[in-house]
């Protein structure tokens, strides 16, 4: 069953390619789906623009448009955002990943798909598609951003992460055969270190026929529609397209940062202004925005999406860029149904991040 984008009619207005005219809007949509994480979109956007300018636009297709046994490769970047602003793609990573997969499967890669649509990870692979002349599947494995590789719908669906392929910007290529998603995450983090902090990866390779049951559909169209609505109507446009709710509009009055276990943790406090005067909403952050609460009551919670956007422009503000005094709107968006299953909540619900449950759907907050 298709959720959100398909039902809200986004599909009808789908531009079937990503080109220089819409790639920036798409990237801003990815940032909104990034819930504060997923990496900054700025350099991935420049990389994608350069690749499209050089090699042409990227076709966006549904998995049904491929033969059932066509090989679909979910891809993304692993590593530290700060490293990505000092050393980024050579531009050859997509080719190296595809060639590694083709050597193993002895058949061509038919399309790439984002492992994670949120943030820069939804954008970077557009350059790989452009350079390889491959279509981009209109789906992804998260529908948002999450901090760990096993927090993906392919994991819920029981698709094996193996074989997984990695390539770095110096041309090193590695193939791994992890026994499960947790080992995959563990091994990948070590490869990231060896390669100096960032690495490109492909995992959970699938037949096209498996894609609909193992991924969240239409998220590329959704990101593009969010980006278009944002440019046209600001925050209201984003809320309408994403089925989101305005949790609070106000001013950031406190940003408390902690570091533990390699994650940027913290609490962002937003004091309401205007119609929200007297309200105070706090957001728990671990790379992504995970829980929003008011007077001790949860009003939105992972795996539902919480994104802090500029109250004026509607542009998403990533976790590292939140500062005291910013005028923001905190928006909440319902996650895909697959995350609301017992298995989905086990993998990406509040308890997984060390918070008390149970998970409360955003619709129950009454905002």
């Amino acid at each position, binding site marked *: 069953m298709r959720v959100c984008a398909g039902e809200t009619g986004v599909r009808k207005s789908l531009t079937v390619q990503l080109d220089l005219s819409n790639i920036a809007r798409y990237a801003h949509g990815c940032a909104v789906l990034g819930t504060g994480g997923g990496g900054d979109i700025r350099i991935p956007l*420049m990389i994608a623009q*350069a690749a499209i300018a050089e090699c042409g636009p990227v076709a966006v297709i549904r998995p049904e448009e491929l033969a059932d046994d066509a090989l679909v490769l979910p891809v993304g970047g692993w590593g*530290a*955002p*700060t490293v990505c602003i000092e*050393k980024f793609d050579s*531009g050859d990573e997509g080719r190296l990943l595809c060639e590694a997969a083709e050597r193993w499967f002895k058949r061509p890669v038919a399309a790439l798909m984002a492992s994670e649509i949120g943030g820069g990870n939804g954008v970077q692979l557009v350059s790989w598609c452009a350079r390889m002349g491959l279509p981009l599947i209109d789906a992804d494995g998260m529908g948002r951003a999450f901090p760990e590789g096993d927090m993906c719908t392919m994991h819920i669906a029981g698709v094996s992460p193996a074989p997984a392929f990695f390539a770095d910007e110096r041309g090193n290529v590695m193939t791994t055969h992890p026994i499960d998603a947790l080992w995959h995450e563990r091994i990948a983090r070590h490869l990231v270190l060896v390669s*100096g902090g960032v690495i490109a990866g492909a995992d959970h390779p699938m037949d096209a026929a498996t894609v609909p049951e193992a991924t969240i559909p239409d998220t590329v169209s959704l990101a593009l529609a969010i980006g278009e609505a944002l440019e046209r109507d600001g925050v209201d446009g984003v809320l309408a397209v994403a089925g989101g709710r305005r949790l609070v509009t106000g001013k950031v009055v406190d940003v408390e*940062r902690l570091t533990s276990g390699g994650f940027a943790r913290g609490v962002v406090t937003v004091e309401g202004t205007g119609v929200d005067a007297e309200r105070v909403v706090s957001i728990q952050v671990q790379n992504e925005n995970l829980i929003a609460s008011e007077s001790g009551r949860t009003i939105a919670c992972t795996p539902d999406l919480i994104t802090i956007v500029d109250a004026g422009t509607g542009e998403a503000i990533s976790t590292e860029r939140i500062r005291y005094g910013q005028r923001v709107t905190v928006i909440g968006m319902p996650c895909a149904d697959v995350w609301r299953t017992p298995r989905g909540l086990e993998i990406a619900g509040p308890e997984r991040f060390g918070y008390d449950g149970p998970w409360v759907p955003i619709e129950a907050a009454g905002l």
Partner: protein
Amino acid sequence: MSTLRIGIDVGGTNTDAVLLGAAGELLARTKTPTTEDPIDGITKALGAVVGTHANDISTVSLGTTHALNAILRRRELGRVAVLRLAGPATQSVQPFAGCPEDLRAAVDGGSWIVRGGVEIDGRVHPLDVAEVRGVLAQCAGVDGIAIAGSFSLQDPVQELEAAALVREVLGSEISVSLGHQVGGIGLLERENAAILNASLGGIVGGVIDAFVAALATHGIVGTPYLTQNDGTLMSVEQARALPVLTIGGGASNSIRGAGVLTGLADALVIDVGGTSTDVGALAQGFPRESAFGVELGGVQTNFRMPDVVSIALGGGTIIGTAGELGPESVGYRLPEQARVFGGDVLTLSDCAVAAGRAAMGDTSLLGGATWSEVLASADLLVADAIDRMKLSRGDVPVVLVGGGSAILPATLPGASELLRPADFDVANAIGAAVGLVSGDAEHVLNLGRGREAGIEVVRSDAAARALLAGADPALLETIRIDEVSLAYTDPPMSRLRVKVAGPPLA
């Protein structure tokens, strides 16, 4: 004895200068129109304040918009060849990507990404010396070389190695700008900073020559300094090497000057001009800096500029027939066009006079009308800007400077007190005159190797820069340490910036 100080601030409309005594007291001040060639106005302003004290001057500090204007107008910029040390990494985004075409046309002298670069963990990928020599052989005739390498702030060794090769191949005359000397973290932004720096050598060198000549004309013995983005000073030698750092002195000087005039180290500063109002913040005696790098002439850099909220509101703001505020302004024509001066344009200054806030012109020309609603909405805009700039919920002291500040009321929401110091209209030149000399350094810190030791490394790097800029080594102080932890790093790492400053070496 040389104990007097001169400060000069070249603004868009006026060139202001002050002469300060040994205790910081104001001995002389002048405002002259900024000239087509700003150096004429500078020479004139110097003459107006120096009087008989030419032999008593210890320092002369100049804040100028020459470099910024050259970038904005794409004029008098040198042609620059770019050498990025990172390949094969980063080839997906070439140098000059995102640079406006007209700026690129003025500056681009060719660009190359050669093999090399440093990793976050300190590993160095060696340069291919033959490759670098081959590239440099194609660079003859450019005005400068910009060199930027991955993680060069962690270890500048490779940028220095490449610079030595440039000297060897192209001679010691050519200007070489190294990323680690001009920019912070972010390779593309640092590369852009190095490019702009290399392109500004000619024009800023010319300004410095003229500045030094103007001092000689008046027989002034003091040491010349230029003001930089953070409101501190650097020697002319350093300004010749790092001209791009002179771009943002103006706003900083006003904020520093407001601190000096009031004795406050922490306050908000509202600078009201004819057309716009800037609200900045004084934090521990220095202008608070923007959290992120700024765009300059359409190019993304990682310079920190003073954190300022600007609103289109000033003494010359034109009031529409339905009471709407601007954003148009009569600007410097206020003394002819405002109603209190017999003109036919209703300005915010007229409203302020009618309400008794300001006294200027002939009140009878206003015909007894009051515009309390207009003033209320103007006050609301200023109060909102104050709220945006405040660092905490409590009220803060607010200093009013700039020629247009008379339009503001006696109290404002968010302000614990409103201070209107004497000589508020030359706060910028005063800020330049009293500037300290600073050095800034930014590193990614490996917390696994000990945090304190790491901070010390960054601090001594910053101190070395301050000494190069002309600070007194005996009086250096650490002004600020900013640390941000980084996600997904193992061992844990943080991004650390340290600023040290001290008075100019006497």
